[in-house]
């Protein structure tokens, strides 16, 4: 059984069907990619999988447990962590504080009211480690809102990592990045590959085809193909509907 499975997901907004009969499965210790053109329903799909929206129909299983319709915090607590395409940080907090908040040990003590968080050196060390891992060592005390765009992208992933996830979902991590920065980010994701089960949404084909173990293609709210990058390159349908347009 795969680590994460979605069966027959349907989602409508008003009269508009956004997702139709989506079936996905992500294996552990792999990097799975989801691609599709803008407006294909990728982000909506992520939002359904992580609890932001309830699906109208269908089932989401994580490690065998049915997590359909759970609230985002419930899903997060089970070990699914995500980043956002539109940057979603705690802008007034320092980079370090952004990570501290996301640490599971801090989360467990969320209702501790009389203990000082800034005096907790163990948590700070752990947060520093994560910060170093996403290439932001030395930026501990800079405000998240003051970081450069590329750094914010990294921090966005860092916050998701700090939650020590069993499954890491990255929503268009290269969105808005130039070629150099995209390459650096690819390096970062590659370095995470060995330690985490990762799912990445992208429309940057090259980025994903280089990194992913398996890829699913979503178009018009449906999964139109899935398989290894090699297999998909050969898929005529995919070539016609996507690659031609993007490349």
């Amino acid at each position, binding site marked *: 059984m795969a680590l994460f499975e979605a069966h027959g997901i349907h989602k409508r907004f008003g009269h508009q069907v956004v997702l139709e009969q989506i079936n996905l499965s992500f294996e552990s210790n792999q990097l799975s990619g989801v691609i599709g053109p803008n407006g294909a329903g990728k982000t909506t799909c992520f939002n359904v999988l992580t609890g932001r929206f309830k699906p109208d129909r269908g089932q989401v299983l994580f490690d065998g447990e049915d997590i359909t319709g759970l609230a985002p*915090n419930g899903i997060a607590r089970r070990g699914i962590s995500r980043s956002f395409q539109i940057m979603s940080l705690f802008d007034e907090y320092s980079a370090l504080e952004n990570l501290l908040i996301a640490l599971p040990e801090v989360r467990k003590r969320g209702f501790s009211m009389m203990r000082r*968080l800034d005096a907790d050196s163990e948590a700070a060390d752990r947060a520093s480690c994560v910060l170093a891992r996403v290439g932001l060592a030395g930026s501990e005390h800079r405000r998240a809102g003051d970081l450069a765009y590329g750094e914010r992208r990294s921090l966005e992933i860092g*916050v998701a990592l700090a939650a020590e996830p069993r499954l890491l979902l990255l929503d268009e991590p290269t969105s808005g990045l130039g070629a150099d920065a995209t390459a650096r980010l690819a390096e970062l994701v590659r370095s995470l590959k060995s330690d985490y089960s990762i799912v990445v949404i992208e429309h940057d084909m090259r980025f994903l085809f280089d990194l992913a173990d398996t890829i699913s293609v979503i178009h018009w709210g449906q999964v139109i193909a899935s398989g290894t990058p090699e297999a998909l390159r050969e898929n005529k349908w995919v070539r016609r509907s996507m690659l031609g347009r993007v490349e």
Partner: protein
Amino acid sequence: MDALQAIVGRWVSREMLLFLLVLVTLPIWIEPFGLYQYLGVEIVIWMIYGFGFNLLLGYSGLPSFGHGAFFGIGAYAFGLFQVQIFENLLLGIMGAVAASFVAGAIVACFLSHRRGIYFALMTIAFGQVFWFIAIKWHALTGGEDGLLNIPRPALEVAVTSVGLGSNVALFYFALSVLAVVIVVLWRLVHSPFGKVLQAIRQNETRARFVGYNVWLFKWAAFSLSAAIAGLAGSLFSMAQQSAYPDVMSLHASGIIVMMTLIGGGFVSFWGPAIGVAVYFLARDVLGTMTETWLLWFGLLFVLVVLFKPEGIAGAWQQYVGTGSHRRVASLFRLGRK
């Protein structure tokens, strides 16, 4: 000795000592300064109210426009306890805190999934409900005329008993309550709980996706803040020796928001204290000079909102311009999108 210092240092900051020092000496200099002891009592009480309110407004980003309700509930609860049950200072205060906490907790159940102006709208509606009940239920509250002849019970510590009949005595009692509130709140805003509240203010969605039950945090912040408002209310009913529905009106609830904001509650822990002091002083100064003082104060307020929305504390921080206060300058880039 060092160990003791370390412990004290962890609970008390330098600003705190300075602040309390100014207030401790207040009864000595307030009269030569041209003011009167009772004003000091009210200022301290409203500071307690303001600090508690800022936990909600400044730290959690939840604008409550109906907080006067909890202040009033505290005042009535204290008064009723003294008059109907028996005269006891600390039990009365605890009763008031409990009553306002429970009221706050119930209201919070209706509010905690909301934010921004929807939150404000609901707090106004609930504030009005409580205000109306206070006026309507005259058998209990004395209605429009208020609950009168509330005693100031003596403070009984071990075998000694300290009367709080004089305004100076009540001032020191209220000040010790304020000191406790400040120390506790200072700790609280630096605790994981406080940090999460601030995270929720900055980005509620992300807080949810890193696994926090945002609803529960908002609920707790609201209830706590209501309890502190009730604490202040109980002291207020002692100061006035009566409890009136007016403090629960929309107008009065707006005033506490106004004070907290003018002082700079969004950018500084001390904002509410500054705002309360400025409001009461301005009111006393302008109030004896002109009958239309509210017009001038209103204009002043509008100008502050327009040109210095970070309030007095914000202006000060900008003036001092130290690195640690940099967050002020960029705080307001955060917009309504």
